[in-house]
């Protein structure tokens, strides 16, 4: 007999420690007892991401969602629901309770088509309201009306700084020029950020549509997508999308018979972080070395090849077709007053469910990390979250309930940045992570201005001293001074924000810096120069596991007798600590 119903039991880590196995067996046994085991299949699944309500059982195909199920409830589910067809009210997930509308915490606008359509088929994009906005812009709306919709929507640039998009477009629209450019900044470079890549790979036509709309609005016929060569799949999909759009007459001369012509070319970047800065990006597009120039003049007036240029980030463009299609007021109603819309975050680090999440602006960090992201991996303690990459800062436990938008993040010393969100737990050393970001800035500084070139190098040096236990209190003061100087005196955004990780961690985790300097201690054990591993002779039973696993090897001792670590040879890899089952290895 064919299967009629499916019972899905959540087998995520949160629920696994609960009673998944008992529930699984309970359902099987109850089905057997009721003689319907041929009609139903019980399945263990991945996490439903609703761990606080677990354990969860879902019945398909009707999608009944039972929460807080105990092994004793399994009989009831089988007898009442599956045999008699009555839903068990007492276990039901109350959808009208606003608080547990888990799925509604995400709102996928930018990612509306990612994971839904085949990105290499223009028809699938068209079927999901693709190029509807373009129709409106070509045949119904005037440039002023498009700008007005964008103004009403309140859309702010998603590249990090949050400048109003309509204003950028308006500046370019108002300038008289024989040539104007539309540029898409797809030079995503923050460590741990991949929102733009996913958008381009999953839904390339949304970017093309937005760029054509921008072209029509400011009267430009030439678009450029600047994308880093490290994104081969995104490039390939963009090329396919461009080809299909040209073949269908959505790009090129006389688009859809409207008389408006526009085409887009792709420029590949070599992967320099500074080229994400708009003036450096334009220089690189022109074929020059990617170095920033002082603003003003802004690119809106004097940009690519000294012509007026609209330059926006991928995620900003991805919002445009929706705003035009559904209206500025519709968009304005999402998110917060000063930051309407949604934001895509790449949630990575010590998080249970790493991935791309898109939430309305104003969602709190707690909701993103603990509800959408499923909390900290392995049940560890949350320490901080790093937002905005090397330009951003850390956000601590105390600020978990801060609503995420441009202004709130700036107020607490971090920034929106492009949307990388790296979660840290108790095992991460804050100084070590700051050193990592500083190293990144040292590598990526273009070297044009001294504050950034020298400042980042010296800050990295001091951080190195701290993590190796050689720093003094004067170094700490010097670190602060150099940080502030770099922030004030640098030419472009890279240098101006390079000290943010230092200044923000000094503000919130000064105690940890002091521990490194004063006590020569690293509480997480990450700074190897400050750590020694010893074996507690009382606890060691001489099982020899550590000696066998030691890669050097530097652990000696007779079987069934306490072992000893030779400190002169120890490389502080920590393997002995990890493998000891008796807690005999001490980290100090």
């Amino acid at each position, binding site marked *: 007999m064919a299967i009629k119903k499916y019972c899905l039991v959540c087998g995520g880590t949160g629920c696994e420690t609960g009673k998944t196995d008992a529930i699984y067996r309970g359902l099987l046994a109850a089905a057997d007892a009721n003689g319907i085991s041929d009609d139903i299949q019980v399945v263990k*699944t*991945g996490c439903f991401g609703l761990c606080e309500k677990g354990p969860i059982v879902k019945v398909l195909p009707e999608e009944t969602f039972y929460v807080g199920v105990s092994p004793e409830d399994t009989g009831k589910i089988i007898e009442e629901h599956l045999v008699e067809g009555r839903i068990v009210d007492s276990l039901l997930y109350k959808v009208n309770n606003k608080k547990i509308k888990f799925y509604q915490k995400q*709102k996928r606008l930018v990612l509306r088509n*990612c*994971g839904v359509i085949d990105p290499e088929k223009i028809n*699938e994009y068209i079927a999901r309201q693709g190029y509807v906005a373009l129709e409106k812009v070509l045949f119904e709306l005037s440039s002023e009306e498009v700008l007005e919709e964008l103004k009403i929507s309140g859309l702010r640039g998603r590249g990090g700084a949050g400048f109003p998009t309509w204003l950028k477009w308006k500046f370019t629209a108002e300038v008289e020029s024989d040539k104007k450019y539309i540029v898409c900044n797809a030079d995503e470079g923050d460590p741990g950020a991949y929102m733009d890549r*996913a958008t381009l790979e999953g839904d390339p036509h949304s970017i093309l549509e937005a760029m054509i709309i921008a072209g029509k609005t400011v009267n430009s016929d030439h678009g450029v997508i600047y994308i880093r060569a490290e994104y081969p799949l995104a490039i390939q999909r963009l090329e396919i999308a461009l080809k299909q759009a040209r073949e269908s007459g*959505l790009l090129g001369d006389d688009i859809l*018979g409207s008389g408006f012509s526009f085409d887009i070319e792709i420029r590949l970047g070599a992967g320099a972080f500074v080229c994400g800065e708009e003036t450096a990006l334009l220089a690189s597009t022109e074929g020059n070395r990617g170095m920033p120039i002082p603003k003003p003049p802004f690119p809106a007036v004097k940009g690519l090849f000294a012509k007026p240029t609209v330059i926006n980030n991928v995620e900003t463009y991805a919002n445009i077709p929706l705003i035009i299609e559904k209206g500025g007021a519709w968009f304005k109603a999402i998110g917060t007053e000063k930051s309407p819309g949604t934001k895509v975050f790449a949630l990575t680090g010590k998080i*249970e469910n790493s991935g791309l999440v898109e939430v309305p602006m104003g969602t709190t960090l707690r909701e993103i990390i603990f509800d959408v992201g499923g909390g900290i991996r392995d049940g560890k303690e949350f320490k901080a979250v790093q937002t905005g990459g090397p330009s951003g800062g850390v956000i601590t436990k105390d600020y978990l309930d801060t609503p995420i938008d441009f202004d709130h993040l700036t107020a607490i010393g971090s920034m929106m940045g492009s949307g990388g969100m790296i979660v840290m737990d108790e095992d991460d050393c804050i100084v070590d992570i700051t050193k990592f970001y500083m190293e990144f800035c040292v590598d990526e500084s273009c070297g044009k201005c001294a504050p950034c070139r020298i400042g980042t190098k010296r800050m990295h040096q001091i951080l190195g001293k701290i993590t190796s236990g050689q720093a003094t209190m004067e170094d700490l003061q010097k670190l602060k001074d150099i940080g502030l100087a770099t922030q004030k005196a640098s030419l472009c955004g890279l240098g101006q924000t390079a000290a943010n990780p230092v200044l923000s961690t000094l503000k919130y985790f000064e105690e940890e810096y002091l521990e490194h300097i004063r006590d020569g201690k690293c509480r997480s054990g990450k700074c190897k120069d400050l750590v020694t591993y010893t074996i507690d002779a009382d606890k060691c039973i001489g099982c020899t596991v550590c000696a066998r696993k030691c890669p050097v090897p530097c652990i000696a001792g007779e079987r069934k007798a306490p072992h000893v670590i030779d400190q002169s040879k120890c490389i502080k890899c920590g393997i002995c600590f990890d493998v000891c089952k008796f807690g005999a290895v001490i980290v100090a």
Partner: protein
Amino acid sequence: MAKLTLDKLRVLREEQKVVIERRDTSDKSIHVIVGMGTCGIAAGAKEALNVFLGEAYTRKMENVVVKQTGCMGLCYAEPTVEVKMEGMPDTLYGNVNAIVAKKIVDQHLVGHRLVNKHVFDYPARDIHKE
């Protein structure tokens, strides 16, 4: 494809809407949709894709359509594969390596049973339906 005019684009959109809807409900064919973003490919989506294509070919399952899509945000569960077929609920599988892909063909496509421990839920099912 011939160049579109405004009217042709509108007609095409309506036609394609039907095509995309049909894949959701009454179509008799089996749709296997593999997440092929960089994250999926890095996690081994190509191997899974090859298994589906290979099995469909060797078993002469002519009603199986293997398609690709972008990243749906479940990076911790890549590679992800969605299976849509009549008589079974739409199912999203996570962590699909070559072995699991083979299991999906054997158990789900042929045997009409879900594959244990690999079923995931949509991060935002209601939004996908919107």
